[in-house]
């Protein structure tokens, strides 16, 4: 282990390290890359298996063959014939879009009030938001189900969508953290111009907080798109209101476990999210970083 004998760090950086160190660094880099490649293959393998199975015939899917022969692209069409996938997709979009809209509409004002306006009880309210964040939703499920049953809304998408229009703890938290980083000068400038608080929120803050808002919208959409538990509770007995996740989980039992079709359906359900990811990669990664680093 070479100990640095040169006093200036900058000079150290500028000088080429000795051959032994360079060789060690090279080997380490190779090892690092090899590990990454192995891990990458392991991560990609399931996708490959799913895709291959989705192209097999039913008999092949049940046998020990790994490669489809022939390639049955027909499977993807068959999925739509055998199950009302489009209806499921429609239900999913209704749920996801309305819920996301609700989250944005209700959480942005709350986050603003918690971050940029001073009022008594603000810290208490924020504390309550944090506590709500830590509540496992499983805990509140029973009384809420009773409530929705009494209101006659079980079986529809109402119990899924409506709560999102009354604030979502996670989104409030995220937005508040971000709003707090907005320099007061922007807001003061607007105030001096004669803007009311609501106007400031609508114009200045929204524009400055676009990455955070995009992140919240993205997460909300993803979360509701992937949601299984709530639709299971409320729409399981009503096939006309099934979302994609419920439909997929029941798909194998609707059609006597044809694994090739089930895998094709699985791919179809995964596809939208992955496509959205590739289109909005930057927003995705920024958003995820936001939650972790600001959290």
């Amino acid at each position: 282990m070479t100990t640095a004998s040169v006093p200036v760090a900058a000079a150290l950086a500028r000088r080429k390290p000795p051959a032994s160190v360079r060789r060690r660094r090279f080997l380490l880099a190779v090892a690092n890359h090899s590990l990454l490649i192995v891990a990458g293959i392991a991560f990609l393998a399931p996708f490959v298996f799913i895709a291959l199975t989705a192209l097999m015939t039913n008999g092949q899917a049940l046998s020990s063959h790994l490669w489809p022969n022939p390639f049955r692209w027909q499977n993807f069409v068959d999925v739509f014939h055998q199950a009302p996938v489009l209806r499921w997709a429609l239900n999913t979009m209704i749920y996801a879009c309305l819920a996301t809209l609700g989250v944005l509409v209700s959480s942005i004002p709350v986050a603003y009030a918690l971050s940029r306006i001073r009022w008594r009880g603000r810290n208490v309210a924020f504390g309550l938001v944090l506590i709500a964040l830590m509540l496992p939703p499983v805990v509140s499920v029973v009384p809420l189900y009773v409530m929705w049953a009494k209101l006659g809304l079980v079986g529809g998408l109402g119990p899924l969508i409506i709560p999102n229009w009354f604030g979502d703890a996670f989104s409030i938290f995220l937005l508040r953290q971000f709003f707090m980083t907005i320099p007061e000068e922007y807001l003061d400038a607007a105030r001096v111009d004669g803007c009311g608080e609501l106007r400031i929120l609508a114009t200045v803050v929204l524009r400055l907080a676009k990455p955070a808002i995009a992140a919240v919208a993205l997460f909300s959409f993803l979360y509701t798109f992937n949601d299984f538990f709530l639709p299971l509770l409320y729409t399981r007995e009503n096939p006309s209101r099934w979302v994609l996740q419920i439909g997929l989980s029941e798909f194998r039992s609707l059609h006597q476990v044809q694994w090739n079709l089930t895998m094709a359906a699985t791919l179809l359900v995964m596809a939208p999210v992955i496509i959205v990811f590739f289109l909005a990669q930057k927003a995705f990664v920024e958003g995820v970083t936001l939650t972790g680093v600001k959290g």
Partner: protein
Amino acid sequence: MTGLTVRAERSAPLDRTRARRKAAWRRRRLVLLLMTPWLIGFSVFFGYPLVMSVYLSFTHYDLLSSPKWIGTANYRYLFTQDPQVGAAVRNTLWIIAVMVPLQVVFACGVALMLARARRGVGLFRTIFYLPALAPPVAATLAFVYILNPATGPVNILLQHLGINGPLWFQSTSWSKPSLVLLGLWGVGNTMIIFLAAILDVPRHLYESAELDGAGPLQRLRWVTLPTISPVILFSVVIGVIAGLQYFTQAYVAANVASGQASQAGDQTVNNLGYPEDSTLFYPVLLYQHGFRYFNMGYASAMSVMLLVVAFTITLLIIRNSRRWVHYVGAAK
């Protein structure tokens, strides 16, 4: 709603107080307007269920007739007589104790490798993140198929290598590890957060460590890890909360692996927790009692206990964290 109006100079101090009070009123009205949706939401979707859960936990309620008060009978059954609660609690604790550390270590490890890599970082990042995007239902279905002991690709490949693959989701000892594998496949989110935090570590810390003679392992132990410890804490807390609510993957895996096509329309055998209650987690058991048997009173008792445990564990972790988490000042 406009800003401040300027008044004519009559009695300055009184006007100022009046103006200030008016402004304060307007501010309060504004806050009320902004906070109302959340206030309603909090009381209806958080406060009310909490109170009702406690109330219902002391009743027998099947939604067909009104709740019948039975005192602590539900809790007594929960703690002493329910034959499945022991398994459910053990399994949930297992998944927290095993999956959370594994996920954090794995995510951190992959992030460290990515941080060091020179070429193809974007591609690798995408590859590692993609599975986290897969909907849990789809991912679980895929894994149950892939890990099918007889016809799944994994066991077939192992066969070619001469290894007799385990029974994965069909075995009581391998079903939970199979779920852990599924969980590790989806660490993309956590990995990205770790990657960002690792790349954020100030370079001068590494340089001064190197000057002091620290090797790469020591730099990792004394510079990197402490600096990203807030992120580690965050991941652990999130992981524990997720573990306490672990439902979807267990439910779908048990249903699919047990191979019972509900096409027959019949489900005389409850296959949640297949095989032999090894995938029965506390939320799954709660669902079974509340929404299969419709014993809502008993399910409420279960949910009250879950709440107590969740709070306690989270508080313990956060309090314990003060010992090992360093908040580096002036971070971004």
